[in-house]
C-alpha cells in the first residue's frame, strides 16, 4: 500500500518537473514595450499596432514580408517576417509578432493580426459631414 503512493508520487513529481522545465524552455512572454524587446536578444511576442502610414513591403525574391509596428509609447520597430502576408493583414488593428530583435529589426517567425473591432467596435468620430 505504501509502495503505491511512493511510486505514484514519484511519477507525479517527475511529470510536473518535466512539464515545468519544458514550460520554461518554450515559454514566450508577451511584451508591449519595444525598448525591452530591443534590449534583450530573447524571443518575445511583441504586441503593438501596424504603422499604416509606413506601409508594408513584400519582397518576392527573399520571400519576406516587412512592415513597421508601434508600441503604446510610440516607439517604432521594423518587423521582417519570413513568409507571406497573412490573411486580414490590411484590416489589422493590432498585431502580435513572435520572434527576436536582431541587427536593427525584429525577425518574426509568426504574425498574428487582430481585427476584433469588426464586431462591436465603434468608429472614432471626427466630424459631422
Amino acid at each position, binding site marked *: 500500500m505504501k509502495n503505491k503512493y511512493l511510486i505514484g508520487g514519484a*511519477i507525479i513529481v517527475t*511529470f510536473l518537473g*518535466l*512539464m515545468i522545465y*519544458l*514550460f520554461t*524552455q*518554450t*515559454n*514566450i*512572454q*508577451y511584451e508591449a514595450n519595444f525598448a525591452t524587446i530591443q534590449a534583450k536578444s530573447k524571443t518575445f*511576442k511583441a*504586441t503593438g499596432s501596424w504603422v*499604416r*502610414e509606413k*506601409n*508594408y*513591403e*513584400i519582397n*518576392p525574391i527573399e*520571400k519576406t514580408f516587412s512592415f513597421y509596428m508601434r508600441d503604446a509609447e510610440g516607439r517604432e520597430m521594423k518587423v521582417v517576417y519570413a513568409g*507571406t*502576408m497573412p*490573411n*486580414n*493583414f*490590411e*484590416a489589422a488593428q*493590432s498585431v*502580435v509578432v513572435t520572434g527576436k530583435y536582431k541587427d536593427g529589426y525584429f525577425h518574426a517567425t509568426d504574425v*498574428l493580426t*487582430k*481585427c*476584433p473591432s*469588426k*464586431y*462591436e467596435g*465603434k*468608429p*472614432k*468620430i*471626427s*466630424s*459631422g*459631414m
Partner: protein
Amino acid sequence: MVGSILLTLALIAGITSVVMYFFTFKGANNTLNLARWSYHAMAVLTIVAATLFLHAILTHQYQYKYVYDYSGSGLATGLTISTFYAGQEGSFFLWTIMTVIIGIVLQQYCSKRGDLESRVMSVFSLAASFLLVMISPMLKNPFAYIWSDPTFLATANINPAFLSAPFIQNFLFSDGNSGQSFVKMSSELYSVLQSGGIAINDFIIQGKGLNPLLQNFWMQIHPPMLFTGFALSTVPFSFAIAALMKNEYKEWIKHAFPWVLSCAMILGLAIMLGGYWAYGVLGWGGYWGWDPVENSSLVPWLVGVASIHTLLVQKKSLSRKDNSSTIGEFAKTNLILSIMTYVLVLYSTFLTRSGILGDASVHSFTDPGYSVYLFLIILILSFTFLGFGMLAYRWKYLDSAPVDPYKSLLNRELALFTGAVALIASAIIVLVGTSAPIFKQSVETKFYNQMNLPIGIIIGLLNGLSLLMKWKSSDGKDIAKKSLPSVIAAVVLTAILLAITGLRDVMLILLAFSSAFALSTNAEIAYKIIRGNKIMLGAYVAHVGIAVFLLGVVGSAGFSHQQQIELPLNQPKEAFGYILTFKGYQPFDNGKKYHFNIEVKKGNNSSIVAPVMFFSQYNNSLMREPDMLSELTRDFYVSPMGYDDGNQKQNTGGNEVSLNKGESTTFEGTKITFASFNFPKEAMSSMMSGGDFQIGAKLSVAYNGKTKEVEPLLRAVKGEREFVPVELQDANLRIQMANLEASGKVSLVISKLNGASESQTTVQPKEVLSIEASVKPLISLVWTGVLLMVMGFLVSVLRRSKESRQQ
C-alpha cells in the same frame, strides 16, 4: 420584445423546476408534477424563442442588433441559418437550446430508472437556468434592439432614399480614419423614424454579414456539434452530484455510462470537424495548431475519455459478488472526473468568451463587457463549488473500498487506470499551455508536442496491452505469448511506414510502433468478435480508431514538406514529383471569388487543383482558401499566396500615403503637395441624396524643375464609385485617390507608370501565381481514425444504454 419575454419566462420556469425537483428530492410528494411541468415549460419557451429568433434571421429583421451585426441578405439559406450562432449571444443561445433538448431526453431516461429523476434533474435544470441567465435581457440578450445602445451603422447598409432626408442629417457621422460615413442609430433616431412612420426594416436594408472565413459548410455543422457536446457534458456532472446527494455511489455508474460515452463521441467529432475546417478551408496548413480555442475544448474531452476508463473499472468491480459491500474501485476518481469534465467545459467557455485570450489566438475575440466577464466567473465558481463542496461534504463516506490485493501488477484494472492517468496528464499539459495567456505568457507548440509525444506512446502501448490482460490478474508469460503476433505485425507496419515516409525521428518511430501495436491487437480481437455479438465491438473499433489516428499524426507531423513556388501562366514547374501548370483564373459565385486553376500532373494522371482567392469587403482583405489533391497515402496541399497580373503594379496597399491639407510627400524624387479638395456644394447635396457627383483632390506636383497642378477624381455615377487617376507621362507617374476623409485628409496611391512605351512592348506581361505547396502523408488516416473512434463510441453507447435498463 416577445423574444425577451419568452426567454425571461423560460428562466423563471427553469428556476421553478430546480426548486420543485429539489423539494421532490427532499421528500415532498406533490411537487414532482410541477417540477416536470416547469422543466417542459422552460424547454418549450426556449425552443419557441429560438424559432422566433431564427425567423427574425431568415426574414432579415435588422431591428435586432444581433441580426444586423452577424447576418445579412444575400447569403445562402444554410449560411443564413448559421448566422444564428455567429456571435456570442447566439452561440450561448444555441448551447442553451441543445441543453434543454437533451434535458427532455434525460428526464424521460431518469423517470424510468428508480428515484434518479428528482436529483439528476434538479442539478441539470440548474445548469440550464444558468445558461438562460446568460441570454436573459440582463446580459447577452439575442433579442436586443439595435437602438437600445447607440450604434454606428455604415451608410451602405441604410436605404439610400432616406440618406438625404432632412431628419437624418443630425445622425450622420464620418470616421476620420477610414473615411466611411455612418448613421448613429439610437433611441432618438428610432423615435424620429417612428414619428415619420418609417419601419426600421425599410430604413436598414442590409446587415454587416457573416465573416467570409465562416462562410462555408463547416460553419453549419461544427458549432452545433460542439455545443451539443458541451450540453451533454452537463449530464455526467448531474449524475455525479445526484449520487453525492443521495450518498449512494453504485447505481449512477451504469446510468451515467451511456451519457459519458455520447458526450465523448459528439465532442470528439466536433473537435475533428473543427480540425478539418481549419485544414481544408481556412488554410491554416494543418488540422491542429494547438490554438487556445481548439485546445480549450480538447481538455474536457480528454478528461471525459479518461473517466470512461475508470468508470469501467468501478462498474466491473461492482459486478463481482464478493464486492457487494463496497462502492467499488475509483468511486472518488469517477466523481471527480465527471465533475471536472463539466467544469472544464465552463472554463473553456470562460477562456474563449471573456476576451482573455485576445492576443493569443487566431480566432477573433471580443471583450464581452464587464458584467458578462463577471457572470462567466460566477458560472465556473458556482459549479466548481457545488461539485467539490458536495464531494468534500461526503468525503468520509467515500473512503476507498477495501479491495483485495492484486496478485500481480499485470491486471486490466491497473492498465485502464494508467491509461486514464495518461489522458489526464495530457489534459493537464494542454490546460497549462492554454491558460498561460492569462498570465501574459505563452508556450510554443513544441511544448505540447514534446510533452504529449511520450504520453501518446504510452497510450498506444496500453491500448494494446490492456486487452491482453485479464481482470484482476494475469500471467506475464501468457501476455507475452498472446502479444507476439501483434508485435510482429506492428514491427512490419512500422517498417512499411518508415519506408513510405522516410521517418527518422526516434520518438515518432516509437509512437508509430506503439500505435501499430494497438491497431493490430484491437483489430485481431475485433475480427474475432465480428462473428459473435457485434454490440461488444464498440471499444475495439474506437481503439482501432485512436491507433489509426495516431499513425496519421506520425505521418503528417513527421514528414510534411512545404515549398513556395511561383507559377507563371502556362509554364510547367515541378514540385514533389508533380508537374504544376497554372492555367489561369476563373470567377465564380457571381464574380465575387476566383478559382486559380492549377493542373497537377503525375505520370499520366492529371487533375485540377483550384485554390481560391477573393477580396472581401467585410474585412477589407484578400482572403485565401487552399485546395488539395487527396490521395490514399498523402494529400498534396496548395495554399494560394498571391497573384501578380503582370500589369503595372496595382499594389494599392504598397504605395499609399495619407496627406493633410498642405502636406507633401516625395515619391522617387517627385514632390507631391495636397492643396485642397475640390468639393462643390452641388456635389455635397448630390452625395447626400445618392445621386451622381464628383470630388477632386487638388495636387501640385514638382518635378524636373517645374510644378504642375493635377486633380485626381472620385466620381460616382449611378451609385458606382470610381477613382479616376491622373497620369504624368514625362514624370513617369500615376496618382490615384484611394480615399478621402471628412477630416480633410486624402489617401493617394502613387506609382510609376508602366514603361508601356514602344521600346518595352516586347516584354510580355507575366501573370504569376505564388503558392505554397506541401505534401502531407497519411493525413487521411487522421480523419479515418477519428471516424472509426466515433463509430466505436456509437456502438458502445448502444450497448451501455441497453445495460443501464437492466436492474
